[in-house]
């Protein structure tokens, strides 16, 4: 984990991470994103069964003062959401790559991961921003 960007994950320019397991992707926001947002008080997730379009706006994450869109890094069917965020949205701040995950998507087309960034590319992105 160089500069807090874990290896083994894929990343989007909108600061989400994707963990692939077969054709199911787990999605969350990066440590950089949670630090930029500040104290997170609410996460609005898509419903299980919802169909998502890659890079579409599919929910919001709210800090004390601000509302930010979540742009899904992958499209497909939502097959799970992190219920724990309802009562503990701050877990996104504490553990963005673990307990603070957002939702799981079954990908229609696994090829869409080609549009995501490698850890090295993402590290480059945040170094430049």
């Amino acid at each position, binding site marked *: 984990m160089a500069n807090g960007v874990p290896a083994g994950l894929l990343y989007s320019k909108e600061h989400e991470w994707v963990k692939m397991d077969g054709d199911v992707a787990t999605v969350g926001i990066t440590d950089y994103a949670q630090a930029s947002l*500040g*104290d997170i*008080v*609410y996460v*609005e997730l898509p419903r299980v069964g919802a169909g998502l379009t890659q890079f579409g706006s599919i929910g*919001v994450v*709210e*800090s*004390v*003062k601000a*509302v930010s869109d979540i742009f899904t890094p992958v499209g497909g069917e939502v097959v799970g959401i992190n219920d724990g965020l*309802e009562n503990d*949205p701050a877990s996104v701040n504490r553990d963005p790559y673990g307990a603070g995950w957002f939702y799981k998507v079954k990908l229609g087309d696994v090829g869409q991961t080609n549009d995501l960034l490698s850890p090295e590319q993402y590290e480059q992105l945040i170094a430049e921003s």
Partner: protein
Amino acid sequence: MTTEINGTLRRTALFDAHLALGARVVPFAGFEMPVQYTSILKEHDAVRKRAGLFDLSHMAQFSLTGADVGAWAETLTTNKVANMKPGQARYNVFTNEHGGAHDDVIFYRLDDNRWLLVVNAGNADKMWAHVSANRSGDVQLKNLHGDYALIAIQGPRSVEWLQPYAEAELALIKYYACTETRVKGTREPIVIARTGYTGEDGFELFLPSDEATGVWDLLLAENRERGLEPCGLGARDVLRLEAGMALYGHELTEEITPLQAGLSWAIKLDKPAFTGKDALLAQRDAGDYPRIVGLVMEGRVPARAGYPVLAGGVRVGEIRSGSFGPTVQRNIATALLDASAAAEGTRLEVEVRGTRHPAVVTPQQFYKRPKG
């Protein structure tokens, strides 16, 4: 002076100090201001439990001198000014002909002929033009915006942590009072007032800009390890919302009158005349005006400024400010509501991204500090 030059953002004298403390700096009212240093929740908590230090130098200070300041100023404002005694501070609202607010301000009377007027940063140019255009009698005006800094220490430990650096006996300064006293690191006595915008005890220090960094560093040097936190505008906004204090542009505007904002305690309709008095009298007598109330969201979804508020599916107003309220651990808001929907306890719905969420009308003040 106060004007932005070619749209570039101005910096307060403490800008470098903010960067050194790791602040996230954002544009606010023409200035680059710290919105947070570590975390809004952490900074909020420090102010409620210990104390926080704020740079408010973006707010404009006007010096008013002359024998007629009090009588003149109260023709432009809702509250009384002329009967203030030296050493008093008083909240006030400059009104337009329709009773709406040009700005909400604090007058500080330093002695018989010298006053300090502090106006909101976002209204600094407008207010300077307004007081200049309406000046009359023995009143001299000087715009200190930029030349003077404003540092606030707010929280229950404020007296204890500021006292070692101030000559005056701080405990003797009453709430909404002020004094001129020497502070370590300043050449001349400065104005210290027991005022603030957090709902906590605390002081505001008005000092020459070139002395601001010295005093700021001094206050943090010994007190930071005890728990004094530098606090940004993010925490300040949450603190004031919990304390039920109006924010210009939200609860008070050129259209929203101080009567609508729940500030009738600062409107003295027994004064012979002031700008907007007739409009405020008419509004009071009609009685059915939309008004600012508090709202508590029943669920986890925060309400934000601009969201529609509905009663039985019909729009009755909109959210004016909204945030998570850490002290009350609920999502709190203010709303401008039709009179028919504004009674305490009324159950309403707030529309958030197309979905309706239940909320209940409460007093505007969500937090009152324990009497110490």
